[in-house]
């Protein structure tokens, strides 16, 4: 019945190291999974959780360290190997075939069922598996129409049908209602009781504590602690997640807060965010804090016109606007530096100066519409000096730059537009410490000159160090705005996770 008493780990990772582009993602990490347990992994964004998952799923390889399955060393060189070993993962965004029906989606990977599809048997088997999980779905419907919760149930059913032994669930509850979460947990418990080892990654601490048998905390790529559920308190977990020195980071120099620049009221976008209200003043840094899935980026995209909001008021310097396109936003003096630097922030094969001039290309054209290359280069040189971009010339392709320098080029691009409001989305993620400090210095510089900055960040020390005020969001909802003086890491994290004790420091 309950196979939890097996003390031999089914999966064991030891001394694992992994770096990307010089940034350490995992350092000397230990992690193990026992059959018949739910082992939760918590940590801030960037703690290394997704890197660990990718290693277990065979998507990436460790730089050093060992992986043992059932006590034997293994090399998970690609996802197919992982699947053959009985490892499956369910992500936030389930991977279903929208045009195939539910039953087909469940049995899609099965080779043994033969070349001929026996529909009635497939429907029956699907209903049986779903029945075991106590889920009611019309197995004949195409998967396209299913809610995320239902799609997840399908994925779990699929895993069961493949006799999965290790199931990774990466933020499965972020799109679910409370009721759906309960259903999901029933499924998870059913799986656990059948001896499956479950790695559960989640941000809602109450949920984590409810479902897990053990909880491990990662921070900054290092393993911090692993404790059985009865020895854990929420405060203790939060402390493990955030506890660190933040003296090495730049602090925001105090500047006089200027006039009101931007006012946002009742901003709403279907299924994305709602009831967003805040003001931004010249010369201040308003930080958007929160966890993955909080939809902070979407608010930024709405302000920049890339994905306009459905309704709400945006007032800039007293005038009300509906921002429908990035062109319009730029004209209004709003700039947005994306978090996805490689795919959305820069045009890869092009040179540094071409990238920098792009939003304002119009200003670099002569009367005939031809590009004034010299002007472009001049501008690029100015930024190269100002932000200390390490490159042999401004004409080389940005592809060959390091992450930090690419970030600087992207930021230069937006600084060049002389914005009144600069929205920076995770500007220091995946960047080395030195460049981080430079970015912070630049933010100080900007606010000193009266520019307003909205900084979207998941890095708590950065949030506290660089902010004048902090707006915390959780799953599209605004949890509150903190004054910097009254804020502490644990308070912010608690708010970001939806804890109820956020009475202190809430200001609008």
């Amino acid at each position, binding site marked *: 019945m309950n196979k939890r008493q097996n003390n031999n780990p089914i999966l064991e990772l030891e001394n694992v190291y992994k770096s990307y582009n010089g940034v350490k993602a995992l350092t000397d990490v230990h992690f193990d999974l026992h059959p018949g347990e739910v082992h939760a992994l918590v940590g801030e964004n960037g703690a290394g959780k997704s890197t660990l998952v990718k290693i277990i799923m065979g998507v990436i390889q460790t730089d050093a360290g060992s992986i043992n399955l059932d006590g*034997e*060393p*293994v*090399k*998970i*060189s*690609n996802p*197919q*190997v992982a699947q*053959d070993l009985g490892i499956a993962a369910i992500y936030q965004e389930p991977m279903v075939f929208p045009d195939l029906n539910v039953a087909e989606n469940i049995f899609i990977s099965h080779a043994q069922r033969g070349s001929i599809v026996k529909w009635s048997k497939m429907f029956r088997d699907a209903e049986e598996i779903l029945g075991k999980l106590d889920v009611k779905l019309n197995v004949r419907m195409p998967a396209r129409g299913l809610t995320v919760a239902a799609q997840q149930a399908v994925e779990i059913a699929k895993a069961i049908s493949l006799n999965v032994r290790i199931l990774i669930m990466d933020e499965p509850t972020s799109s679910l209602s409370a009721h759906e979460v309960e259903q999901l947990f029933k499924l998870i418990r059913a799986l656990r009781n059948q001896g499956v080892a479950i790695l559960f990654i989640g941000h809602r601490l109450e949920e984590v504590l409810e479902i897990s048998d053990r909880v491990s905390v990662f921070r900054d790529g290092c393993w911090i602690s692993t404790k059985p559920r009865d020895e854990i308190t929420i405060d203790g977990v939060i402390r493990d997640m955030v506890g660190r020195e933040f003296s090495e980071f730049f602090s925001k120099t105090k500047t006089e807060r200027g006039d009101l620049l931007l006012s946002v009221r009742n901003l709403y976008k279907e299924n994305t965010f709602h009831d967003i209200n805040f003001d931004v003043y010249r010369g201040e840094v308003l930080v958007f804090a929160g966890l993955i899935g909080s939809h902070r980026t979407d608010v930024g995209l709405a302000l920049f016109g*890339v994905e306009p909001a459905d309704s709400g008021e945006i007032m800039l310097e007293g005038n009300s606007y509906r921002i429908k*396109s*990035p*062109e319009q*936003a*730029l004209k209004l003096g709003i700039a*947005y530096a*994306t978090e996805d630097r490689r*795919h*959305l*922030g*820069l*045009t*890869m*094969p*092009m040179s540094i100066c*071409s990238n920098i001039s*792009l*939003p304002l*290309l*119009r200003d*670099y*054209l002569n009367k*005939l*519409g*031809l*590009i004034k290359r010299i002007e472009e280069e001049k501008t690029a040189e100015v930024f190269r000096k100002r932000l200390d971009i390490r490159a042999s010339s401004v004409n080389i392709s940005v592809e060959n730059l390091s992450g930090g320098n690419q970030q600087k080029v992207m930021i230069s*691009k937006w600084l060049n537009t002389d914005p009144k409001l600069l929205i920076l989305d995770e500007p220091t993620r995946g960047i080395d410490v030195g460049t981080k400090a430079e970015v912070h210095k630049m933010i100080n510089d900007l606010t000193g000159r009266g520019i307003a900055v909205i900084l979207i960040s998941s890095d708590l020390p950065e949030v506290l160090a660089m902010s004048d005020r902090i707006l915390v969001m959780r799953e599209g909802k605004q949890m509150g705005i903190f004054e910097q003086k009254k804020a502490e890491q644990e308070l912010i994290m608690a708010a970001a996770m939806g804890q109820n004790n956020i009475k202190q420091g809430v200001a609008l």
Partner: protein
Amino acid sequence: MLNNKKNFLGKLKRIGGWEVFLLVILAIIVFLNTLRAPNYLTINNQVNLFKLSIEKIIIALTMTFLIINGEIDLSAPSIMGLAACFSAFLYENGMNMGIAVVLSLLVGLACGIFNGFWIAYVSLNSLVVTLAMLIGFRGLARLFLEDRSIGYFPDWFNFIGQKNLIGPFPFSLILFFILLIIAIIVLQFSGFGRRVYVIGNNKEAARYSGVNVKRIKFHLYMASGFISALAGLLLAARYGAVRGDTATGYELDIITMALLGGVSIFGGSGTLWGVFLSIMIILNIRNGMSLASFSGHYQTGVIGVILIFSVLGPNIANQFIAWSKRRKRMIEEQKTCESDGKEVIIETK
């Protein structure tokens, strides 16, 4: 002296390996052709070379812009035919040829606007839309001309297509070179051209940088429609007559000229230098085959093979490079594991 040499080689590298490769191929073909026909490299012969396909290569220019932008216009030859047929139809019904020409150009523009609307603003797939309009516009052309062939255009019209304007060069050839120069300037040196590349490279990133993607695509299709109409009229002038199926089947040559020229079908890269070289290559190949008495159909087949190889070649080369990289890594890992003795390697499929 040494410095100059270094600079030259450096410049050569920057132009791009593919263009150099094309140059070499071109040299070989011209050489082979010259062996066959001693007067091959005379101005007259070279001009003739161009004359036969002048309308196609004009459209290859706009097609290059579109493909670099990540789109395609399969309906261009049909717009050519439509403009030619429409003008002939008007002329046959008594209209002044000059006015007919202007109206036909406007029709081409309208076709471009039609395409651009569905593709840029409704966001339909450009392949399906231009495929549909390949049929649709051609159908309209046939509508005007039915089975007939219309000719006997006024002298000035024929003159443009047939007689030489300056020395041995006909009007259309001069027009081509003017357009080529304008195209090069626009694509490589202007803001519009830069945006075309950026959009083709990464549409979303372009949008995030404030580029008005829809408007640029729309303009490109408008231009394509207009230029196609112009080319169609030139074709009518050169032949002296128009039929319902004028300019059928040109899309193969045009796409080959672009793709062989190093323009990636996926968008974002390619230059007009390369396209010009590939135009020369295709023209010289066709000419060489004519000299060797291969029929038009045979030539078309050869062009088809060239198209396949110009995309297949780089693909296979890339796959080979990726494969050999993987193999190297596996061999290295195998070595470390063998020395380790304990680790088990699970082979990838």
